[in-house]
């Protein structure tokens, strides 16, 4: 197996494991997230549910906003670029960002390719809905994978679907013979050695978080129990009735996902969660963006 594409970035992702990464749109929200125990914040102009409501073209946030959020906290700061938008990524690297999310939540910029992430020192996290997609991103240099789910919906079902699918596909590699593996590698446009490596490891070679529709501490615990290594919470915190308390509860639930009594305690009297959307009625499915 080839050496990893971005070993230092993969190491940073390892340090985030078992933690919650929270979307924030202001420096004040970033401080609330840090105080609640977030391991990182995702700095952006609009949370996914507002991007949905707002419509139009969603782009990288103004670097001034990202810089302000960076200044407010000591935890690592991430920011999003459009799929395939290498120039936006270069701007964020010049801003000294800790991690770039090449995200389907923004409007894709390249209909053919994702960013070639190998020349960058800054690490990238990318979304995936299945094993082939995850391995294409890793082969392009992603240092971390997050299952996509359906962002901004407050509906956890797609996050569960993508996580379970990837874990099952990894297990299924074990029973494939050489020919089946070769076919899978060709159809999914991934190198055979990477596929064999994953078959042997029985996990992705980079850290895998989950994302998209996580609205309650119980949602976070559900996904950790299925096998996520950590959680991204986008709209779920700052659209809830009590963001500080919800954020804190998400952090506790992600760490202590096996402890039912603790989950009961942190889930009690949280106030109204985000309202949520039915996925079947969505005009845009963000999870379908990416190739």
């Amino acid at each position, binding site marked *: 197996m080839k050496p990893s594409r971005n070993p230092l970035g993969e*190491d940073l992702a390892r340090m985030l494991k078992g933690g919650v990464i929270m979307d924030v749109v202001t420096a004040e929200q970033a401080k609330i997230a840090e105080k609640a125990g977030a391991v990182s914040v995702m700095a952006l102009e609009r949370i996914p549910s507002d991007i949905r409501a707002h419509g139009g073209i969603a782009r990288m946030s103004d670097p001034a906003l990202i810089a302000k959020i960076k200044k407010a906290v000591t935890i690592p700061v991430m920011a999003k670029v459009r799929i395939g938008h290498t120039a936006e990524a270069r701007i964020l690297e010049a801003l000294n960002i800790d991690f770039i999310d090449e995200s389907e939540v923004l409007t894709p910029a390249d209909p053919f390719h994702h960013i070639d992430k190998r020349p960058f020192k800054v690490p990238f996290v990318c979304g995936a809905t299945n094993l082939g997609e995850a391995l294409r991103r890793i082969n392009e240099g992603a240092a971390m994978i997050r299952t996509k789910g359906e962002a901004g919906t407050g509906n956890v079902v797609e996050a569960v679907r993508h996580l379970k699918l990837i874990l099952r596909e990894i297990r299924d590699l074990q029973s494939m013979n050489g020919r089946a593996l070769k076919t899978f590698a060709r159809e999914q446009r991934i190198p055979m050695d990477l596929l064999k490596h994953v078959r042997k490891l029985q996990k992705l070679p980079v850290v895998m978080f989950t994302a998209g529709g996580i609205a309650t501490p119980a949602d976070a615990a559900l996904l950790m129990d299925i096998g996520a290594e950590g959680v991204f919470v986008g709209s779920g915190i700052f659209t809830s009735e009590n963001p500080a308390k919800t954020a804190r509860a998400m952090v506790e639930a992600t760490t202590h996902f096996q402890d039912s009594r603790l989950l009961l305690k942190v889930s009690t009297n949280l106030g109204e969660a985000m309202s949520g959307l039915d996925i079947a009625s969505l005009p845009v499915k963000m999870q379908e963006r990416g190739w």
Partner: protein
Amino acid sequence: MTVGVLALQGDVSEHHEVLRGLRVASFDVRTPADLAGVDRLIIPGGESTAISLLLQSSGLFQEIIARHIKRTLPIFGTCAGAILLAKRIEGTNTPKSLALLNITIDRNAYGTQLDSFEERISVPVLGRKLLRVSFIRAPKITATGEGVEILAMHKKVPVLVRQGSILASACHPEVQCEIRLHEYFLKI
């Protein structure tokens, strides 16, 4: 001997992996009951602010201090673990630490992720072969007080220290699959 790895957040499985390589039984520690079952504790890398909060809410904070004072709990901290052991922490938004190790540490003093680096450092107590480590948004040990022995330096800055049964490193040997520092920890 059973070794616990504090499993509130961070690179827990990497430490378990190293311990498995040394054929030592290791367990996750998330509660005071878990802690009662282990002879030694590793505090992994991660975000010190998050781990500090979770230490306090889980009741482990007081328990770890009590066990260590009774001299029944050697502790090894890497990166965030070193911050959480330090008596004095410099910088803003500093987390509450266990304050068991007489050092001053500056969080994220090496900069952002773009300043992270891999290095081979000389650790005389481990022999002549250099130790491969990663510095990931690493903290800098800016002062060491009485009783603290410096086991390794990088560019004239201490990066690995020991005080009695506490071992702390600003960098990560565990992500480089280095087993020798853990082996050393198991003997102290």
